[in-house]
């Protein structure tokens, strides 16, 4: 039954997005759908509002940074949940470093508000249409995005400590 819904999701995304739907694959117990960044808002809206799909709950969203992967340095992940049929899916989209912006989904899920602020705070991803895009956990005066890989864990001003002593 669970496979059936994944086929329906694939077909519907294909019809709506055409080439912008970049396929799906199974990652452990999660079906991951790859969608081009230009269509991410439409895809998420379809998944939420379509009566057959009904992914009404946004579990979490998060960004990650892959500096070696040129042209797609950032990956944004959304995790949706259909509680009625108990199906979870993951949506992924890639972002190049020079155009770090995505449409905000706070209109679809109010819970995305702080989650998007958090990703802005740590990665500098600009969510267009977000009502209040400020830093949330770090201080406002901070002038870098700490979860990007180029930022060391230790204070950059110190030379007596080196990241190689901290695992990576």
């Amino acid at each position: 039954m669970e496979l059936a819904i994944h086929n329906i999701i694939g077909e519907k995304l294909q019809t709506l997005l055409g080439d912008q739907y970049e396929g799906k694959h199974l990652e452990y117990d999660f079906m991951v759908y790859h969608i081009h960044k230009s269509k991410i808002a439409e895809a998420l809206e379809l998944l939420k509002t379509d009566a057959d799909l009904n992914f009404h709950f946004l579990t979490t969203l998060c960004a990650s940074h892959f500096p070696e992967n040129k042209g797609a340095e950032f990956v944004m992940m959304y995790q949706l949940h259909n509680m009625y049929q108990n199906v979870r899916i993951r949506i992924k989209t890639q972002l190049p470093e020079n155009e770090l912006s995505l449409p905000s989904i706070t209109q679809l899920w109010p819970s995305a508000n702080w989650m998007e602020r958090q990703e802005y705070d740590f990665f500098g991803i600009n969510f267009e249409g977000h009502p209040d895009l400020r830093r949330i956990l770090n201080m406002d005066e901070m002038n870098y995005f700490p979860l990007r890989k180029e930022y060391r864990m230790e204070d950059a001003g110190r030379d007596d400590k080196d990241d190689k002593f901290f695992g990576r």
Partner: protein
Amino acid sequence: MPIPFDASNLLSPAQIRQAEWDALGYNTINLGPTHPATHGIFQNILQMDGEIIRHAEPTIGYIHRAFEKLAEHRPYNQIAPITDRLNYCSSPINNMGWHMTVEKLIGCQVPKRADYMRVIIMELSRIADHIICTTIIGQDTGATTGFLYFFQMREKIYEIFEGLCGARLTTNIGRIGGMEREFTQDVWKKLETFMTEFPVALAEFRDLVERNRIFMDRTINCGPISADRALAYGFTGPNLRAAGIDYDVRVAQPYSSYEDFDFAIPVGANGDTYDRFMVRIEEMVESFSIIQQAMSKMPEGPIHADVPAFYLPEKQEVYSKMEALIYHFKIVMGEMDVPKGEVYHAVEGGNGELGFYLISDGGRTPYRLHFRRPCFIFYQAYPEMITGTMLSDAILTLSSLNVIAGELDA
């Protein structure tokens, strides 16, 4: 590439509209960051019209410790102590959640006995977490007696944890692959004493508070949230169930052999403070029954899976066997061979779905670790829930949501 600091886009909505509120004659009150009534570090800038809250703006991040960055620099077994400090009222659940995430990544099947031991520990910590929340609600309505007496049970649970691992609050119980040691005789004895004393203490607390006229008048219709809004705001756990949605990770996606146990999911109807209180009280009863079932059905067998590359060997073997010494050295130095991949694992924490999203590139540390912290997500609804209510109701709403600062700020 540092970005230049621009002060112009730092104004919060409250600061932008300050003049408008001043013209209306509202008083601006800083509730927090360290206010004794908020039980944690929460700042809310309130615009007060007399005693009515017209606008609230929360500021968070006061105890942010950059766990997601820290986790990228620590070997897998050293991340468990970080998870302790998320929801520090029920840290064993966080520990188990992390261990299960790594077990999912490495494809390790934990033996039943370890599963059942984990269930006992997790349900004990759920009871401890709910004891804190329910007694604090009582405390904030003026019923200090319940707080003082029922809190003894939490102490009993912490004594069990102390017997299990030596620590009380930040426990770091369990290991990747199973449990670190058997329950000792002393732990079993303490657990049995707890199982006889807890129902009595719970009944006493319920008699005192549950049908108390003052308590009911004070909490019914205080800070309600509808099921639709709760889902939209990403509520999970007891707060969502109080609004009437029967979603529980233990049932929806069973982990750690929860499918073996027979328990109910209590749900509320109105999503107000009284419902949140009652859902937690009923959950303690269910947790108690799960512990009883786990104790009576406790299977025999090993307490950890056969994963020598991840599970620390016995000290005796380290001194006498070559292989054990090698594995010990590799684990302590953080040289575990972890497959590439990404996993998400969720457990039902004290406050809702606690998720771990882990990306591994095969290196010695996670490439990226994201915590889905329930408190962080549902605390967004707090301004909406308290707008238009009295200040004292706002305090009660905050304590009934059971927002834990450590989990909020990570």
